[in-house]
């Protein structure tokens, strides 16, 4: 199907055709949830940390204008060059213009979900610029020519044998090699060459500190650092919401981030960048791309508190059984489903419905975003705007008719029970989606209402 008609129901139907693979995907991601739980339960004040982080982010969003000005001023005084990008297109143009100015045709990039959001790689490729993704997971999906399926674990949907095949095809390892040590060593050598040769490195930003104008990048591989410290130009891109007021609050977020993301106590590297090294240029691109609009939506602005840990994804029972690609968006899972409709309500109308409202995402979110509440609210907005699925709209109107009238409800119940009892073939068909994997419920001897009335002598 084309990207225009991609929707979660159809994509997850396809994903579920291979049940063994679904089991593997589900168990792999649940294992991370289990690791996260272990890490969180080691911190007795975990819930206090969450609450504190949530309140800090609430404060940031409520005073974002001043914090942005403070950050820009401080960063500039540290020798950093600041750029502002209203949207994805402007972000891409700014980065391209920096490459052009320096005559650079090859760039190394560390993990940045923002570049996925802006489709930077595709844009630069069309301008003849080679981009190498240095995060190992991202490099794997880049070689496989696929988008990442998870914001922290981009190739979690790939088994090691599949990764072995990709490395054999592109990096010259032995066919059938799937030993993780060998694969990692191969990747390390391949990426090392890249780091040593590239003049321009792009990194994301995990946290930007308004008070000091510095920014923090957290990686397990040190790839952001290798790229930045060997390049003549370091570009860091960030969404305008990624601010933290003061340096001391960083501790709250660093204690929450990696435990939530992977169950580790902290990433291998948490690097603070303040001033360019001698002879180097450092640029920061501050990106809006719909964030200021989301800020104005009272019901949905909390989604801007997100620190991109990815916990909502591995805890989501729907995500684990449908895979990141079924959300047809760089940010998948629950957080993707509340951010994407803001950018394109029509294209992403299916996402808030790809949810069972179990609330696990909300309970696991380190900054206490009310994710499942927002998913519910988005549904109402989408239906009002007319983007809901046509069948569902008709179905819901019918249900509304039946459920809002006691007489209609009782009649519908009687008819339903009669059909199930006397003409089961009418409901036990392939047109009844319930029946695909489930038997219909057996009709009761008497409806609950009659039983209750009799029992309590109301008849």
């Amino acid at each position, binding site marked *: 199907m084309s990207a225009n008609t991609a929707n*979660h*129901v159809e994509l*997850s*139907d396809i*994903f*579920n055709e291979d*049940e063994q693979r*679904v089991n593997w995907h*589900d168990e792999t991601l*649940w294992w991370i949830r289990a690791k996260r*739980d272990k890490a*969180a*339960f080691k*911190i*007795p004040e*975990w*819930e206090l940390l969450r609450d504190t982080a949530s309140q800090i982010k609430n404060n940031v969003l409520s005073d974002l204008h001043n914090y942005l000005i403070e950050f820009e001023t401080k960063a500039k005084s540290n020798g950093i060059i600041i750029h502002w990008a209203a949207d994805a297109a402007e972000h891409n143009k700014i980065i391209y213009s920096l490459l052009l100015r320096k005559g650079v045709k090859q760039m190394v990039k560390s993990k940045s979900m923002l570049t996925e959001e802006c489709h930077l790689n595709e844009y630069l490729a069309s301008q003849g610029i080679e981009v190498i993704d240095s995060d190992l997971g991202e490099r794997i999906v880049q070689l496989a020519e696929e988008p990442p399926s998870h914001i922290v674990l981009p190739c979690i949907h790939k088994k090691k044998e599949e990764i072995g095949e990709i490395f054999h095809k592109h990096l010259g390892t032995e066919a059938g090699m799937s030993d993780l040590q060998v694969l990692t060593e191969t990747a390390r050598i391949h990426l090392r060459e890249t780091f040593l040769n590239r003049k321009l490195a792009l990194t994301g930003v995990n946290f930007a500190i308004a008070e000091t104008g510095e920014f923090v990048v957290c990686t397990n591989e040190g790839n952001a650092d290798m790229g930045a410290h060997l390049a003549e130009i370091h570009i860091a891109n960030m969404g305008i919401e990624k601010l933290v007021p003061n340096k001391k609050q960083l501790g709250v977020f660093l204690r929450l981030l990696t435990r939530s993301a992977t169950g580790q106590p902290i990433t291998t590297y948490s690097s603070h960048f303040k001033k360019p090294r001698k002879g180097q240029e450092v640029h920061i691109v501050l990106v809006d791309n719909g964030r200021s609009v989301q800020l104005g939506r009272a019901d949905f602005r909390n989604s801007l508190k997100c620190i991109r840990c990815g916990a909502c994804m591995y*805890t989501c*029972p*729907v995500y684990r*059984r*449908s895979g990141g690609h079924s959300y047809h968006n760089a940010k998948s899972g629950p957080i993707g489903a509340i951010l994407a409709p803001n950018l394109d309500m029509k294209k992403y109308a299916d996402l808030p*419905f*790809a*949810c*069972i*409202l*179990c*609330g*696990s995402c909300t*309970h*696991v979110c380190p900054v206490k975003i009310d994710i499942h509440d927002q998913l519910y609210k988005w549904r109402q907005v989408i239906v009002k705007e007319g983007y809901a*699925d046509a069948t*569902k709209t008709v*179905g*819901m109107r019918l249900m509304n008719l039946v459920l809002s009238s006691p007489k209609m409800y009782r009649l519908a119940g009687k008819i339903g029970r009669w059909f199930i009892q006397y003409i089961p073939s009418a409901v036990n068909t392939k047109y009844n*989606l*319930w029946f*695909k*994997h*489930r*038997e*219909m*419920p057996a009709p009761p001897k008497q409806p609950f209402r009659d039983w209750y009335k009799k029992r309590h002598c109301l008849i």
Partner: protein
Amino acid sequence: MSELVEPFFSKPLQLLNMVKDIQIMDLERPDECCGFGGTFCVAEEAVSAKMGKDRVDDHVKNGVEYITSADMSCLHMEGILKRRGSSVKVLHIAGILNT
């Protein structure tokens, strides 16, 4: 809400523990969603059915004779159990508390 770092509490469990001669079995995933969800059960049928299957499997492999729930999801799990001809029965919690 096993995600939260707080003392465990479950209202339905508290009520069930007051029933004579009942034995509550532990599950591998204590509070994962069963996948019923309302219109979700047909709107996202593939995922709903898979969630239901997995939930049922967790109960069956931990040796339960009855699965109980506090909402209409009992129909969803019962439907799956019946489809595979299982002897595990399903009861709404009201049915247990009413005995």
